[in-house]
């Protein structure tokens, strides 16, 4: 009796240990086996059983996304509208603030993926090429709307295999404080892409707008570079800054074959040297350390810390909400030809979903300008082609205070005719390459090395990580 009881305890213990071990090891397999996925991630068991019901009955989907409070509100009302209009589908939105990639990686490792989710371009490419994402091209017949988006908004991991689409189109543009320009009597940055400033014109203007505490400009006698009150221009240190300029100068991160590091080519070095010169030779831009400690771009403009900033079109929302600021939008200066890049996150449908059709239905709804307010408030630009070509459609999302008149050129025309996907979105293994690239570029931004030296040194670190490029269609 006593022995048996002892054994019973032992048995219970063993079972619990076993449960712990197997629970772990089944999670350890990662997303290897999509079919074994337990459906949408959910902490409520009730939902999981519901998702196992036949699709004709009722379908539960989870949708995971990041973003500001404004974005969260817009998503919540979109989800609510979707659920009302689709009685057989219930979407549960989950807003993830903070470290989104870590969260997604963990969910992937634990096989707890949502059905539909935002994703950074690096992970999209990685998981897309590993077959973890729904290939949209096989649904073109069923959902024609899937293929009427602007060509540059698709991500392909194999020719013709579109694994994702940018959630919204975002291009890099130049914003400026209108009042500063008026007071200085300097013409504002051109909005028409064909009339983009040359680099020299841009530097001249930036100098006129830079003032030290005595009101002197760079180049004038007695200019005090250590006490600058107002900078002409500020830029970030990442691909949003050097990306468009590389494109404009005909340079690239990798060479044409996509197999060789090319950031130390003369065209590319030129771009980085010009940026370094803005800070340390022309004194028209704050260095990266000052920048990191400056407020958001719209506040920099509003407080006259900076006259022009380089930012994405998503910034329209913040700029519009800042009622004290009179701002304008222009195109970036050109090096060889006017160019900008599209830089955005994607929304994907995971292959592990049990309800791809319903997921696609929601997918098409979630970035439809008729359903989501984020287009009219400035955060997003549509991906569908008609919103760039048909007057009525253009008006439907741009005829409001978030889109000043010059947006038609600096936003729409720029995107349609001059924007290419950021080269980084096509590079295989980009997250790892960037992990080496960013610290290496710090040497340029902090003036420790010239652009040529820093970019030459990076070659030996980055070349071993180069794995080629994804196709463009």
């Amino acid at each position, binding site marked *: 009796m*006593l022995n048996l*009881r002892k054994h019973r*305890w032992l048995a219970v*213990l063993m079972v*619990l*240990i076993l449960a*712990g*071990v197997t629970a*772990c*090891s089944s999670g*350890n*397999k*990662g*997303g*290897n086996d999509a079919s074994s996925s337990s459906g949408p991630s959910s902490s409520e068991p009730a939902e999981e059983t519901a998702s196992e019901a036949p699709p004709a009955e009722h379908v539960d989907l989870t949708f995971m996304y990041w973003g500001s409070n404004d974005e969260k509100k817009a998503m919540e009302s979109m989800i609510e509208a979707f659920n009302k209009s689709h009685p057989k589908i219930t979407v549960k939105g989950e807003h993830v603030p903070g*470290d989104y*990639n*870590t969260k997604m*990686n*963990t969910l*992937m*490792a634990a096989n707890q993926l949502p059905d539909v989710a935002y994703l950074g371009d690096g992970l999209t490419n*990685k*998981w897309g090429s*590993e077959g*973890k994402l729904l290939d949209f091209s096989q649904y073109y017949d069923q959902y024609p709307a899937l293929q009427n988006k602007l060509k540059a908004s698709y991500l392909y991991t194999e020719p013709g295999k579109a694994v994702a689409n940018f959630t919204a189109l975002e291009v890099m543009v130049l914003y400026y404080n209108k009042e500063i320009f008026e007071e200085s009597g300097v013409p504002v940055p051109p909005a028409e892409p064909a009339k983009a400033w040359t680099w020299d014109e841009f530097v001249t203007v930036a100098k006129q707008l830079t003032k030290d505490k005595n009101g002197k400009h760079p180049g004038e006698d007695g200019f005090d570079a250590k006490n600058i009150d107002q900078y002409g221009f500020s830029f970030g240190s990442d691909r949003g800054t050097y990306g468009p300029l590389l494109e404009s100068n005909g340079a690239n991160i990798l060479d044409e074959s996509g197999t060789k590091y090319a950031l130390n080519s003369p065209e590319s070095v030129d771009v980085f040297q010009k940026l370094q010169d803005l800070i340390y030779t022309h004194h028209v831009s704050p260095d*990266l*350390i*000052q920048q*990191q*400690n*400056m407020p958001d771009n719209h506040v920099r403009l509003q407080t006259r810390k900076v006259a022009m900033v380089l930012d994405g079109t998503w910034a329209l929302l913040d700029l519009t909400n800042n009622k004290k600021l009179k701002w304008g939008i222009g195109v970036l200066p050109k090096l060889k030809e006017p160019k900008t890049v599209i830089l955005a996150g994607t929304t994907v449908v995971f292959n592990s979903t049990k309800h791809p059709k319903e997921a696609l239905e929601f997918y098409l709804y979630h970035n439809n300008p008729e359903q989501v307010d984020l287009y009219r408030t400035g955060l997003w630009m549509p991906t569908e082609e008609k919103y760039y070509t048909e007057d009525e459609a253009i008006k439907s999302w741009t005829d409001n205070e978030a889109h000043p008149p010059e947006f038609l050129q600096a936003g729409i025309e720029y995107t349609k005719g001059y924007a290419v996907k950021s080269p980084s979105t096509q590079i295989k293994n980009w*997250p*790892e390459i960037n*992990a*080496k690239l*960013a*610290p*290496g570029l*710090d*040497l340029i931004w*902090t003036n*420790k090395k010239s652009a040529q030296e820093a970019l030459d040194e990076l070659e030996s*670190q980055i070349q071993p990580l180069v794995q080629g490029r994804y196709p463009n269609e």
Partner: protein
Amino acid sequence: MKRNKSGILRMERKWGILLALPAMLGLLMFTVVPVIASFFFSITDWRIGNEMTVIGFDNYATILTEDSTFTKSLYVTTYYSLFSVPVCLTIAFLIAFLLNQKVKGLSIFRTIFYLPTIVPSIASTMLWLWLFNPDFGLLNSMLESMGFSGSRWIYDEATAIPSIVLMSTWSVGNTVIIFLAGLQAVPAHLYEAVEVDGGSGWRKFYHITIPSMTPTIFFNLVMMLIGTFQAFNQAYVMTQGGPNNSTLFYVYYLFRTAFTETKIGYASALAWILFLIVMTLTFIIFQTSKKWVHYEGGNK
């Protein structure tokens, strides 16, 4: 009578196991199993989302021979540790020594020095981010008002780690408490003996306080060494490892490898190498401790 007793024993044993079970299971599931699992992963090439194959000790070989980021992060962490541990130990000891004196409002001082330890680590890191701000941070404002030129603090390769050491001296509260307990346990008769022999305050400190405190110093040294090798928040919240990887702490690099680059196998190998490093260091300190740690009434 006899049967009855064994019944109680049996019941006690049953309840004992039952009540200890949650802790045992917790240890098993959240410590033992993950440790074993991480060793297993470290000999595979598992990347999140991919098939996993066992590749033996290739990860270890790659880390030790090819990975320049590993070398850098190990250097950064060692530099931080070698700098931070002596500085923090000394400061904590001095604070504890002062707090052990008989002055008015002692409990208030004790509270003040302990307070930063209660502040959540992320919150205090955010706070220091503001203090370090080169343009309008408190530290630079103070330096400049005294006529010195400001520093770039965590934003400059050369000053990044010293700045983080400065920050770490702020939250030595726990160490202070342990030192304080140690100080109060120093037998008063030893001090009296020095006094009888006409020894000064310094002699008391040097001949009585420090030798009596060596076990406490030893304990704090080991704990702090382990702690500094696990530095993470500073890099995660303040610098993201920059500029130019000058604050790329080992654990932050490990985290980034696992969750940004999705290389769980490789990151697990990194974790085991860290474990071996910390274990070796601890072992070395234990070995040397025989020479300098004095236990009262024990083998000196």
